[in-house]
């Protein structure tokens, strides 16, 4: 049998039991590769459970710097007998299966076309440790040590990582390094190291990662830092996977950065609300009163918040909501990713509403777009929804470093101060469109003893915020809100458009985490002679660039991770282009991040056979492309 040979380009997957401490060992493995200067993208595929269920960690190593999922597994590290049958089946021909050889492998699990590497992890742990907890925890470190020998991971890098991990708990450094050595020794004395698939430092410069100045971080932490930098002082939230770590990280950084050195008091407030409704209510109350406030949630939370989103839209209160999307509907698959809140978010609430959406694709964008979201919310006096997802929010991504311009000043939008009110000759009208851009002036409560007070309400009102049921007044107000939405088009992030080297009438549209595998798929197809222009949408409302891209192409594949082609529908709904026939949905919604191979397969199928592969046939189609 031919064993696969590859340097710095493969997919390795770890099959673990959750709650056994595997996550930190796996993360150390990925970070070691990252520190060796080799592009890597790890992903947790975890259950909605605390202990005892199968969990996986898939690591893509790509010298070209592709960070999306490729599809297929080259090396499986099996530490969980529960899932061993399906784990063996997943390995590609010529790949490796690393398993615990303390007990002999069931012969039914032996495949002719896979290389088996048995290491008696349990035996080693039984021999070395007496404590049951230690036996469980160190098993993870031992397999990382073994992989270090098998795959040529720089052992010193691992040692540094252990030292970093246990900073402040130095007692734990030596036993962890010892466990790494146990694995390393066993593998290097029993096997021909390195195996065919392995790593080499600085083998080739990644073409997609210009200089290797990248950082490795998750999107939720980046978004939380964005909120800190944007000057958010109030966070109200309700715990929900996969968004919880946003407020956890906000709390962590605020404890470091927002304590007044003189008084020890907090320049921020975080409230864990009783539910998502209340969380958004608090955010709206705080923003109404002039503080910058935000919440982070996921689809089920946005459903509950819809009522308040309608209020914030209609009463024109700035609001920032970070939606870390997961697989719905209802409770759906709480620990799986999707991009299926797009339509709900765009039109959340009853009545005629439209909301501004931002679509970050990297941790750096989670940071910068969150900073930007607070300015947009204040400028537009409306909810801004940052549409992240589980894959981006909870996994570590290589990303350009976070950047912040110290000259940047917060734009609080049209807010009248006491002096402004004193200078005004005309009567203050909270909902009067003085500038003709649909955005009106507001005041903070308590600003002036005599002027500027108004009545904020979710009921229809006139320009002076007085209740009215006059149809003409109502229409004037609703039309002004539309005008404001037009104004938004010019100030939200523009799409990123890339022209193919060869002229083409075919295009591809995607957004958020679909971008990484999509760019890779485009290159796969380019080599086959299929040329495609690409547009990564970064915001809704769509600006004119989006309309133009649709008009300039005859066929446009819209790639997204949901069943109903929600972005495609939004494009049909919200652009003037007559595009129903030319927008072809390319959809993946099994809850795992879409792979480059699947995208390439579906587009290829459409171009060569005129159809997108039906879901039931997709698995076999993927094998064809492998």
């Amino acid at each position, binding site marked *: 049998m031919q064993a696969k040979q590859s340097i710095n380009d493969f997919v390795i997957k770890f099959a673990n039991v959750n709650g056994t401490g595997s996550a930190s060992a796996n993360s150390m493995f990925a970070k070691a590769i990252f*520190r060796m200067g080799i592009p890597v993208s790890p992903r947790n595929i975890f259950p909605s459970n605390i202990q005892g269920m199968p969990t996986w960690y898939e690591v893509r190593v790509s010298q070209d710097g592709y960070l999306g999922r490729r599809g297929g597994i080259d090396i499986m590290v099996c530490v969980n007998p529960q899932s061993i049958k399906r784990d063996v089946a997943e390995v590609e021909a010529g790949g490796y299966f690393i398993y615990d050889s303390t007990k002999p492998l069931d012969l039914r699990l032996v495949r002719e076309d896979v290389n088996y590497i048995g290491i008696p992890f349990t035996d080693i742990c039984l021999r070395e440790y007496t404590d049951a907890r230690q036996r469980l925890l160190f098993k993870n470190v031992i397999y990382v040590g073994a992989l270090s020998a098998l795959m040529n991971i720089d052992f010193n890098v691992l040692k540094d990582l252990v030292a970093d991990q246990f900073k402040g708990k130095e007692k734990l450094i030596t036993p962890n390094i010892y466990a790494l050595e146990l694995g390393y020794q066993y593998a290097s004395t029993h096997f021909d190291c390195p195996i065919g698939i392995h790593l080499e430092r600085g083998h080739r410069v990644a073409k997609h990662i210009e200089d290797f100045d990248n*950082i*490795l971080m998750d999107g939720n932490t980046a978004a939380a830092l964005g909120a*800190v*930098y944007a*000057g958010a*002082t*109030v966070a*109200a939230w309700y715990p929900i996977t996969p968004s919880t770590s946003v407020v956890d990280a906000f709390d962590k950084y605020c404890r470091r*950065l927002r304590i*007044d050195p003189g*008084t*020890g*008091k*907090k*320049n*921020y*407030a*975080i*409230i864990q609300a*009783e539910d998502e*409704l*209340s*969380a958004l*209510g*608090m955010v*709206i*109350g*705080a*923003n*109404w*009163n*002039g*503080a910058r*406030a935000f919440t982070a949630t996921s689809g089920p939370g946005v459903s509950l918040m819809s009522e*308040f989103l309608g209020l914030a839209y209609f009463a024109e209160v700035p609001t920032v909501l970070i939606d870390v999307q997961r697989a719905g509907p209802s409770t759906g698959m709480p620990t799986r990713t999707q991009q299926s809140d797009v339509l709900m978010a765009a039109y959340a609430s009853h009545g005629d509403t439209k909301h501004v959406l931002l679509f970050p694709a990297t941790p750096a964008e989670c940071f910068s777009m969150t900073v930007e979201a607070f300015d947009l919310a204040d400028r537009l006096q409306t909810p801004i929804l940052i549409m992240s997802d589980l894959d981006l929010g909870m996994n570590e991504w290589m990303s350009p*470093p*976070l*950047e*912040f*311009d*110290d000259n940047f*000043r*917060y734009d609080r939008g049209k807010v009248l101060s006491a002096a402004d009110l004193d200078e005004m000759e005309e009567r203050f009208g909270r909902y009067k469109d003085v500038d003709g851009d649909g955005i009106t002036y507001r005041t*903070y*409560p*308590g*600003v*002036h*003893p*005599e002027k500027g*007070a*108004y*009545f*904020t*309400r*979710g*009921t229809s009102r006139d320009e002076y915020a*007085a*209740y009215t049921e006059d149809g003409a007044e109502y229409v004037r107000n609703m039309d002004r809100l539309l005008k404001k939405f037009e104004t938004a088009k010019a100030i939200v992030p523009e799409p990123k458009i890339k022209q193919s080297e060869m002229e083409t009438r075919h295009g591809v549209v995607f957004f958020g985490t679909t971008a990484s595998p999509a760019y890779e798929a485009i290159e796969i197809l380019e080599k086959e002679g299929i040329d495609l222009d690409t547009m990564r949408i970064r915001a809704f409302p769509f600006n004119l660039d989006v309309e133009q891209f649709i008009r300039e192409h005859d066929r446009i594949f819209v790639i997204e991770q949901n069943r109903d082609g929600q972005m495609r529908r939004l494009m049909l709904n919200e652009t003037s282009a007559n595009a129903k026939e030319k927008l072809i949905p390319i959809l993946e919604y099994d809850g795992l991040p879409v792979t480059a191979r699947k995208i390439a397969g579906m587009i290829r199928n459409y171009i060569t056979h005129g159809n997108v592969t039906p879901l039931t046939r997709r698995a076999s189609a993927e094998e064809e492309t492998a």
Partner: protein
Amino acid sequence: MTYVKPAFRHPDAPTNELGRTRQDYEGGLSTLCAGCGHDSISAAIIDACFELNIEPHKVAKLSGIGCSSKTPAYFLSGSHSFNSVHGRMPSVATGANLANRDLIYIGISGDGDTASIGLGQFAHVVRRNLNMTYIVENNGCYGLTKGQDSATMDTGSPNKKGDINMYSPIDLARLAIEIGATFVGRSFSGDKQQLIPLIKAAISHRGFALLDVVSPCVTFNNHSESTKSYEYVRGANTGMPVDFVPMRQEITATYDSGATCEVCMHDGSVVRLYKQDNDYDIEDRQSALEATSHYAKEGKILTGLLYIQRDSEELHDVLGTARRPLNSMNEQQLCPGSRFLDSINAGLR
């Protein structure tokens, strides 16, 4: 009913210490039914704020949805106001208070808004001891949708159609005492003498102050058999008279110490309560719960200051937030700058 509010005011109208007349504390003309109890409560709020020398712009008024929640339009037109969504006023008030702890927060709600759709938010704003005055204008029915029973309607009380309510009522004052409220009063919109000092005390209280005010609905729930009618409540009301002596004012009245108690508020003001019962300790939750249930068993409604906990920690104390309002901070206080970001980046390599 008049449709235009007269603009004329007597030139010698009395002024308060700020030089403002009572008119300065009024709002727009009420659109509620003539005789609605809610209008009496609005008037009591106006009197209380006028007499407390509160600057109107230092007050933020918040409400949910319903007849009661419309009333912030009818008092303190110089204050900002937020008429939010049904049952959600507590969360909006919480956010607003977090943003600026220097304003006075007055929340107006009804029994539908608080005891049904908003019961969850109500319970949690009580738990958090948010520094606000929360007035429930309690009429036992949904006025704005024409008279359906609410959750505070007493068992056995008939509605206007004659249907008898068979569900158990929620007593918001007792619930609030049970789950940790630090100021709970009950009153009657028809008893201005008691209501005005109670509102003053509630505003002066540092922490969450609930006033459950029975406020008859003249259109849908004022028939004599209803336990929320003027007639019934006048008969059943066992009022404990309340005096409010603002801070710095000398206490001159004498009183019989047995049935009277005085509570010194956080700001130095004093609330004096003339109790019906010597054994009742208004600083003891159990005593307050026993007193209210004792009177309820006798078909009476005990009104007055039912419970107070002095010197509690309000939400800002619990959170440890800065004395300076969060909404007044700028980049200098809030933004860590690029150098810190560099160190973050370095830690992620």
